[in-house]
């Protein structure tokens, strides 16, 4: 462990704002990249379900 306390860890030697905003943006983009395809997949399957129902009721 290179920090002696949690407060020191958060402060990152006065560079806390830079370090944490860089990691915040990085993680947010990773989450977007996972959520996007998952939501697209759900949307697609819902459309397909609707299409199948329409075809069956014909």
């Amino acid at each position: 462990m290179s920090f002696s306390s949690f407060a020191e860890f958060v402060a990152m030697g006065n560079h806390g704002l830079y370090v944490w905003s860089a990691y915040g943006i990085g993680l947010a983009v990773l989450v977007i990249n996972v959520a996007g395809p998952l939501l697209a997949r759900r949307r697609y399957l819902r459309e397909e379900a609707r299409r199948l129902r329409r075809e069956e009721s014909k």
Partner: protein
Amino acid sequence: MNWTWFHKLGSPKWFYEISGRWLPWFAVAAVLLLGVGLVWGLAFAPPDYQQGNSFRIIYIHVPVAFLAQSCYVLLAVAGAIGLVWRMKLADIALQCAAPIGAWMTFVALVTGAIWGKPTWGTWWVWDARLTSMLILLFLYFGIIALGQAIANRDSAAKACAVLAIVGVVNIPIIKYSVEWWNSLHQPATFTLTEKPAMPMEMWLPMLVMVLGIYCFFAAVLLLRMRLEVLRREARSNWAKSEIKALLGAP
């Protein structure tokens, strides 16, 4: 060398089956490696003797910048395969990887700017490394826009493949920019081929993060490609029954 796997890639159905088996492994590996790498890099790696703790941005900046460039090489390779062998899957890979690459380039630029402020005293300079990375972002935008603007799938695939192949000239420019021109940007700190320029306890968490981000890329790419395969093959029997199975229909 046995090339059957390459020919099997021509079959979307085969790809769909095999990728379904691999995807969970990549996802688990990505979560584990990124989790370990983050904690290691942020809390346990020693601070840099010059930059102090702001250097910890390296553990997100470098893996993401690595991936941004590898992803572009992947686009060019997929483009070449698509042009030469007319493999449908190559265009799917190209179209699905481009947005991920663009996002990674964006993160590399933003984290680089955030790192530059406390280190160089400025968010941005128009030097070779930064400018060539910005060009990489625009190349990604160009490929994405081209893929969406052309309605005919075959023409779009061809146009995107050509742009991806031509644009790959930018990759060595990015790599060697810090050697060819005077740059504020520090030279490569992470390399697999030479003795690393940083001590082991700084370098190892970086290795873990780089492996993690590649696993992440593989997982997200397969996720996107599987959906695109299903979309394009929706008329074929195997895709129909797969969609029905996913919907839980009888």
